[in-house]
Structure formats: C-alpha cells, structure tokens
C-alpha cells in the first residue's frame, strides 16, 4: 500500500473515530439533560407548603390577564330602582 493510500485510510479511520466520539458525547449530554429535567419535575411535584400552591395560582392569575376583556360584566347600569345595598369603604 502506498503512503498516499495509508494516509487516506488513516484519515478515514480518524474521521470515523471522531464521529463516533462526537455522537457518543452528544448522546451523553442529551441523557444528562433529560435526567436533570426529570429530577426537576420530581422535585417540583414533591415540593411542600404554600409555594406550590402559589406557583399554580400565579399561573392562573396570568391566565386571567391574558383573557383581558373576556370576563362577564357583573355590573350594569341601574334602572334607578331603590338601592338595596350600599358599597362604601369601611
């Protein structure tokens, strides 16, 4: 085998090795990221106290904010009947 052919073969082997190593590293990184995400999910579901409740409700609050203008109108103009109640500060 000529020196040129040996060089090509060596380059080819090197390319294949680098490719396999890169693929492996990427796979490992993906696995690590997935594991980290799963652990975070577990930690969130196990969190105790009011914090979890607050996070849930904060999400609801912002949902209400996104629904701007979609809420029913609880007050309408009066027909000038005698008032049954008085809303004032206390």
């Amino acid at each position: 085998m000529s020196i040129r052919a040996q060089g090509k073969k060596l380059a080819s082997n090197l390319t294949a090795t680098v490719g396999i190593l890169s693929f492996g590293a990427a796979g490992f990184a993906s696995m690590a990221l997935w594991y980290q995400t799963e652990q975070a999910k577990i930690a969130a579901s196990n969190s105790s106290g009011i914090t979890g409740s607050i996070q849930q409700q904060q999400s609801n609050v912002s949902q209400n904010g996104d629904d701007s203008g979609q809420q029913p109108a609880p007050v309408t103009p009066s027909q000038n009947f005698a008032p049954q109640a008085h809303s004032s500060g206390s």
Partner: protein
Amino acid sequence: MESIGREDWRVWSCDASVVVTSPTRAREAAQIVRDTIDAVDAACSRFRADSELMRLAASLDDGVTVSPMLADLVRGALDCAVLTDGDVDPTLGNDLIAQGYDRDFLQLAETPLQDREAAVGATRPRTPGWRRIHLQDGVLTVPGDLVLDLGASAKAIAADRAAAAAAAALGCGVLVSIGGDIATAGTEPATGWQVLVQDMPTDPAQQVSLGAGSALATSSTQKRRWLMRGVSRHHILDPRLGLPADVVWRSVTVAAETCQRANAMSTASIVRGFRAVSWLRQLGVSARFVDLTGRVVTTGSWPVDSPARRSDEVTA
C-alpha cells in the same frame, strides 16, 4: 318592584346587612350571616385574646395545627397576596400596631391620643412577609417576627361564605353586605341587585345593578382614619414600607365573581395608586376609581356614570 326582606346591624365597627328575595326569610338569613361572622371572628380576630389566632400566636413559629376555618382564612389571605403580587399582605400586623391600630377601630377612635402614642413603636421599611407563611395539611407556621392581620380578606371571605350558606339553606336569592363589601348568592331579584356605590356622603354616587353571584368591594382612604402624633393615618398600608399608602384615590370599587377577589383588587388598587388603572384594565376587571378631586375613572365594563345623586337624595 318585587318585595324583599332585609335585616341590618352593626359588627366589626361597620354596618352589616342581609337582603333576601324571600321577604319572610330575612331573620333566618340574618342568623346565618351572624353565625358565619362569629365563626370568622372567633378564628382570626386580632382584637380579642380568646380568638384562635391570638391563642396560638406564641406557637405559630414552630408550626401548629389550626382549625379548618382558620386554615381557610389564611389560605384566602395568601391567595389575595398572590393575586396582587404582594400588595395585599396578611403579615402587616406589627406594622398596623406600630401605626397605632392595635384595637377595634371603635375603641381606637375613643382612645385618648397620648395613650396611643405610648404604644407606638418606630416604623421602618420592611420586607413583605407573606411568602414566609407556610400552610400545609392544616399546620400553620408563621415566623416569630411576623404578626398576621387577616382583617380585610377575612371580612370579604365572611361575606362570600355567609351569602352562599344563606342561599343554600333558604333556597332564595341573598345579598350580604359587611362594611360595604357585598357578596351575592342564589337568584337575583328581577331587576338585579341594586347597589349604591358611594364612599363618603359628598363623594360622587352611582347606582348599579349587580348580577347574581357577583360581588362588589370598595376600599377607602377616607374612612378608618386616626391621628397619630398629629398626623392623619389610614388603615391601608403599603407592604413595602409598612406605612399608610400614598393617597391617590379617595376610594376604589371593584366588581368580581367573589367578594374576596374584589376586596383584594380594590385594596391593592389603593396601594398601587395610578398604576392600578392599567393593571385592572389589563385584567379586564370592572372597577370605579374616585380621585382626590372627585373625578371618576372606570375600567372594564363598569357602566358609565349617570348623573350623580347624593346618598341623602336616595330613598332606601
């Protein structure tokens, strides 16, 4: 107009009313409302030594099991803090005491100024404390440097609970008003619930029709005021300072599906000042702001003001 029944009385230094669509059931409804108010007061009043909150105060730092009622009231107060991003903070007890608000308001108004001054401590900027309250499986933990004051949210929750309980027990439409915080349940009268919205007698008035299951709350900077060291104070504190909020609005009235929610947003609007208008507009909330000059600003679908009538022109 169809006939209604009603009962009125005084509680928590303010007016309370129940109105029912079945005229003969007013007295029963009033008893249900009174029982609800009594239960809330026994759970969380900071003005009576035998309330559950006061009895357990010394143990809260270590965590203690509380009654379902107190747990619900604390949870409701924390919900209000979440909704308002902490502008309504249930941990302002020490700050209210520092401002001289250390007893029922009726007694506060009657106490000589020098006596109150003796109880007044130094005020300083504070860190909002509501995120440090822990409530899980009925066990409440409150750090030792915080004192709970559930006042505003508890009153609104009491109105919601009382209206729901009375409507369920009596099978008719019910409106409950506690100090101007209004909750409704059951069916509405044919003309809707007619509510006069007006804080002080000289403030602009507007009458609105409130639909079944809706609620109204008004927060005011003009009521529950007292003098401390010659300076007029009001009872709505800015949690970031522990001091009465700067007065931008004379009053703010908010409509919502529950009185708890309406009260949280009206109180927070006093704290937020001008920013409150854009906040409630973004949320699509119907509200009415009265500024220091008596001008009215509305948000959401709050109806346009009709020509104002003063309260002394209205036949109740």
